[in-house]
């Protein structure tokens, strides 16, 4: 079996997801033992136009990025959206809640009209080209990434959990944030991360996106039970799950 050729590309993002690949530490040696990494700008100088698997990090925010993504898609047999930005648009999508001209003025003042600052609606990768697999999270969970890669190489269809974060949070024996009167998005957000945030005493802020069928109505009613407001809930949902 010849090793599959893998290329990693980044768009608008913080590159934290690529970092999680580096953070596989010793396992990265195993990884390069089973795949041929032919392009990975952040870690190596080689570049290539021939690859079987393209891994896309980041969301699409400019017309030129859309074009570049389409070229990558046309070359890749399998395209993986890596991380929240690629999977659901990530924090970048919060921009879509504002008027773009106003956004630009806010950040760039009088220089806002410079042509390169052109920005369009932030989109997730699947909103631009077809995506074969999605590894969510901000950042991704390295273990999950490693598992998905191995499953792909074996010809399995990698699965990402479709149950809420609470499953993993409970498994870690955390006391639920709601018991402290705090909001947590865990009940409606897709698991797979291992619930690091509630485990560290912080709320789940939804970086992996909603489960397929979130019970948002329940979430609203439950807020009232805990004397929290639906507005509080929406505030938190907007961080990673803006439209």
């Amino acid at each position: 079996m010849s090793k599959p050729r893998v290329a990693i590309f980044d768009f608008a993002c913080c590159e934290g997801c690529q970092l999680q690949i580096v953070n596989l530490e010793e396992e990265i040696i195993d990884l390069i033992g089973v795949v041929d990494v032919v392009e990975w700008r952040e870690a190596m100088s080689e570049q290539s136009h021939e690859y079987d698997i393209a891994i896309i990090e980041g969301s699409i925010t400019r017309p030129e990025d859309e074009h570049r993504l389409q070229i990558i898609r046309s070359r890749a047999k399998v395209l993986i959206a890596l991380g929240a930005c690629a999977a659901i648009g990530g924090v970048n999508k919060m921009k879509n809640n504002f008027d773009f001209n106003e956004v630009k003025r806010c950040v760039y003042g009088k220089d806002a009209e410079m042509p390169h600052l052109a920005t369009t609606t932030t989109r997730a990768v699947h909103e631009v080209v077809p995506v074969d697999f999605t590894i969510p999270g901000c950042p991704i969970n390295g273990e999950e990434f490693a598992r998905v890669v191995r499953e792909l190489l074996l010809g399995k269809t990698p699965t990402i959990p479709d149950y809420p974060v609470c499953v993993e949070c409970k498994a870690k024996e955390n006391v639920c944030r709601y018991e402290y009167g705090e909001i947590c998005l865990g009940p409606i957000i897709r698991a797979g991360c291992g619930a690091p945030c509630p485990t560290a005493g912080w709320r789940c802020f939804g970086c992996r996106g909603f489960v397929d069928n979130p019970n948002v109505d329940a979430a609203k009613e439950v807020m009232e039970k805990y004397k929290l407001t639906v507005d509080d809930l929406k505030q938190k949902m907007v961080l990673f799950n803006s439209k």
Partner: protein
Amino acid sequence: MCECCTQEKKDIYLPELATITKRRMLNGTELYMHLQLDSGLEMEYTPGQFVEVSLAGIGEAPISISSTPTQKGLELVIRNVGTLTRAIHKLDVGAKLGIRGPYGSTYPVEQAKGKDLVFVCGGIGLVPQRSFIRYVLDNRADYGKVTVLLGTKCYDMRLFREEIAMWMERKDMCVMETIDEAHDCWDGNVGVVTTLIPKIENELPNSLVMVCGPPVMYKFVLMSLAEADVPQGNIFVNLERRMKCGVGKCGHCQINQHYVCQDGPVFRYSDLADVPEAI
């Protein structure tokens, strides 16, 4: 390591190896294969039972036995629907699979002796039924009339065509076939399998009726059978559920109080009629 258990009891999750001795695609998605256990032994099973088939590293799934215990080896038919089944489809003759079993309940092979039998098969539902049909044909004198109703979604999906053609030739059984969607090469019945039921209306009340097919089929077939006054105790259904162990532990296949892997997959319909989640 705990010796108390491992010495006297075998590991219920440990498959034994079997070799693929024949394989052939029955249509675009269904693969037939013949397996021989590497131990050289023959598996002792009864029509209706299933085995857990696994490909180490990919996964495990329950698969009905399609052969009869009157023949050598095991015959399985596997539909390409997901990870494991896709991987199995790629295997060639000589490749190994893991097998555990047989598990589950059986068709009423003894009870049915001397009785008239009707088999209602929808699509891949023919696969487990074939085990019993062939068993009956191999012990033809023990059973009464045999009627097989076959329904398939479309012409190209039909299974075991040569074998069915041979059945059709036989004088000692009646086979009727229909396909859901008309096709140029097909001059037989068109319509869902329930459309065949009125044609044998007279025989039905005195027959044992075996039903197997996709989840949606049961409701309609059972309604037609009720209209034809078939007692619920004479109907046997073969159900599919998600399964992770095959031995009554994992909880996935449970329908109300029944475990499909232990109490099923073959149920007498009268035992299920009051079980809301069954059909």
